[in-house]
């Protein structure tokens, strides 16, 4: 399989590089800067798993922590890790990945053919269907677990080492997107001891996929300058690849820093992951937002993707996840995705706006950007 969906326009990927990896045993290639998800999409992989109850084929819908479908088993042997989101796994040479959902495999799924399983599982199936006869519960559970494919934990001792760091700071900024970056800069300039953490591989958040300009330069280069500026402050600690996973009492936060996961190796010295236990005087949550998906009939078929994710794959990773697009939106923001799609040389079939009279400037810019569409949702 080749990278049929690869563009050479990714702001954060190097389309001339080659990184070999395997997916469900198949050899594939991605590029430097890819996540596993962007590499799979570049290779035209549309189905990445099967759903829990109905065993329906599912594709990648998001580009970050929100991804519900692309749940992967990474690595093998003692160092294997289950249940990682492909959207957050940085690609490295030799990475081994496998879908955790799907039995016997994602493309030929016994359960969806027999089809009986989902019908047995209405809401409350935990409480209704399997309550009786109680003796069968063990059997059911075994089957559900196998069917759901929750991944498998390694059975050998963990070869990696881990450590913890207790930290104190004046201002902890969670999220290094546009808001978090400028917040950290202001706090640092005021003399505060600042920690800024972000779960992504590099700082910038949504700006990494933005084609906006800030202060007359590309958003991504503005980010680079600002990050360099932050790192020049002696009172600022920057923590990329670090997820603030819990905000506890009295401004106590747990931050999981993944130090070597992206290299696919155990740490030569120090730890694979580090747990920062941070007590902050003040906390700024600059986490950004998830795009809220639209709930419509058959909205789970592979190929349905969040608009912001489509733009991210095109602009940040240089991947156009498909050929022909119908954009369905309730807001102005998503029109940018149609513009991005068109610029990627792909066809915008239609833009469906649920609003009766969308009038924003970007809506009207469609023709100028080379596509036109004015379909509207039929209201019942």
């Amino acid at each position: 399989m080749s990278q049929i969906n690869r563009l050479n326009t990714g702001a954060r990927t190097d389309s001339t590089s080659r990184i070999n990896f395997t997916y469900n045993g198949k050899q594939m290639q991605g590029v430097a800067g890819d996540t596993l998800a962007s590499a799979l999409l570049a290779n035209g992989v549309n189905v990445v798993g099967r759903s829990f109850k109905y065993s329906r084929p599912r594709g990648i819908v998001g580009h970050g922590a929100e991804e519900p479908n692309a749940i992967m088993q990474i690595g093998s042997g003692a160092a294997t890790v289950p249940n990682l989101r492909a959207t957050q796994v940085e690609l490295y040479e030799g990475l081994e990945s496998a879908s955790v959902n799907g039995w016997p495999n994602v493309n030929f799924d016994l359960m969806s053919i027999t089809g009986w399983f989902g019908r047995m599982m209405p809401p409350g199936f935990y409480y209704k269907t399997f309550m009786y006869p109680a003796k069968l519960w063990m059997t059911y559970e075994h089957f559900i677990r196998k069917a759901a494919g929750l991944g498998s934990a390694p059975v050998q001792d963990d070869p990696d080492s881990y450590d913890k760091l207790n930290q104190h700071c004046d201002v902890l900024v969670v999220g290094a997107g546009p808001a978090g970056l400028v917040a950290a800069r202001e706090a640092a300039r005021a003399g505060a001891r600042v920690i800024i953490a972000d779960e992504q591989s590099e700082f910038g958040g949504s700006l990494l996929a933005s084609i906006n300009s800030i202060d007359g330069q590309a958003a991504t280069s503005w980010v680079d300058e600002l990050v360099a500026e932050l790192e020049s402050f002696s009172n600022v600690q920057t923590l990329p690849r670090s997820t603030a996973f819990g905000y506890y009492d009295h401004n106590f936060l747990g931050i999981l820093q993944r130090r070597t996961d992206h290299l696919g190796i155990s740490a030569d010295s120090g730890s694979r992951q580090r747990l920062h236990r941070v007590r902050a005087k003040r906390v700024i949550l600059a986490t950004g937002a998830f795009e809220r998906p639209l709930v419509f009939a058959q909205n789970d078929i592979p190929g349905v993707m969040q608009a912001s994710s489509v733009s991210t794959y095109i602009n940040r990773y240089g991947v156009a996840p498909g050929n022909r697009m119908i954009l369905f939106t309730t807001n102005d923001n998503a029109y940018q995705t149609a513009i991005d799609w068109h610029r990627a040389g792909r066809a915008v079939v239609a833009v469906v706006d649920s609003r009766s009279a969308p009038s924003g400037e970007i809506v009207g810019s469609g023709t100028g950007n080379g596509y036109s569409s004015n379909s509207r949702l039929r209201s019942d």
Partner: protein
Amino acid sequence: MAGTYSLAACLAEGASAGAEAAKLAGCGDGRIRFPEPQVEEYPEQPAQALFLVPHTKATSRAPSQFVDMQLDVSASGIELAVREGFKSVEHIKRYTAMGFGTDQGKLGNINGMAILASALGQSIEQTGTTIFRPSYSPTTFGAIAGADVGALFDPERYTAVQRWHQEQGAAFEDVGQWKRPWYFPRGVESMQDAVSRECLAVRNSVGILDASTLGKIDIQGPDAAEFITRMYTNSYLKLAPGKCRYGVMLKEDGMIFDDGVCACIGDNHYLMFTTTGGAAGVLAWLELWQQTEWPDLKVYFTSVTDHWTTATITGPNARKVLAKVCADIDLANDAFQFMDWRDGTVAGVAARIFRISFTGELTYEINVPAHYGRHIWEALIAAGEEFDITPYGTETMHVLRAEKGFIIVGQDTDGSMTPADMNMDWVVGKNKTFSFIGKRSLQRSDSVRENRKQLVGLKTVDGTQVLPEGAQIVFDPEQKIPMSMQGHVTSSYFSSNLGHSIALAVVKGGHGLLGKTVYCPLADGRSIAAEIVSSVFYDPKGERQNAE
């Protein structure tokens, strides 16, 4: 900063939040220092709040409209749950499994809650959200454990004699964080063989135990005796220097909490021994009462557990062994009596020797500063060689004390036992003026109830059978399940000195049931018959510890 979408507004809010947070943390004046970044973007018109795209068919008959992709929760499933009577968002979550997946409903839950609100005919605000809990995304066990694995999982405490024990091939037992020798097998000896040999050695000649782990609290101050007397069931007001007394400590509910010997070191100076596991709790307990209830009492506590090595030599030849290494104490029975303690020199080291006994034999507990621990230990081993002095561990200690019916707090008691339940009324001072901790509770109707579980001995009809500790006790083994349980076995061993098994148990109204046959039904269907006997199996008159 929720609900701000335009890039320019995000940048502006971020800058002011950063400056403000720094100010609140005591840095700067809250003023923004950097010029606002200039952004070109389209102005946005309002979005439509659309949570469920309508279908020509009713939701229940339309193709699935998925809310939670990972767990296949659809809009029709949420509506069905409402039809079945669910109203609370937390119940709906659990009934439909919405948000249960590894993605924790990051995409689905907001739509699901809005669809629920619509199905309930109420606003989203009225419906509310489920509580989102850490972790935000899956976190590895490795990171949570950190370096606290393997040897660093839990600190281990060793006595000063630890290395000697290891050199002798001792098997160790965890007692709290302490590593204590459990028994000292010789060659290929089994545990039972080793324990039998150790038990016989103590009763027939002399054994030596590392008792350093016992909790030790140094108590000083003009009100020390008064304070100690308030904490124990018996009185220490007239305890003279050089004397020891065994005491039981109760919680305010009248239940046994700890026990041990307390020695009067000098005027206003006492040394309190606690159980190994109870040391920290007892110290906190003493400080609680002194600091919060009786701050007027002048008394000070210091934990000195680790300061001392305690070598206990016990058995009929204990005095002869001690005499070989201690010249400056008159060891004659009437000069250094049972429950006395003396300062002296043992093998050249200043020592405190306590003549107290947990085995029922003539016993000296020799305390020296911990650094001299191994020196003293080896001196005693050398001195005892001609008597075949036998090192023994906690298992033999347990067997020997059980032969004597001495309780172990936390094994024979479980926080619901009064001194009377343990047949230890003798330790409760009847004439104490101050209402010591727990005293009032001993008169509560439940404390004087006649069918309380009471400590008894059990002698199996077949003396080779050793009852399992924790076994339930019934009066009629033929009754239907569930049986009427009358008590349980708290301690059980094979006694090589007596040639049969022994057990301690608590049985309802047990003190009035001597001679009755009871049964312990086992999981395998068998049932072991045993007779209720006195809890003192050996030397019932207690003569051996006073031996000449």
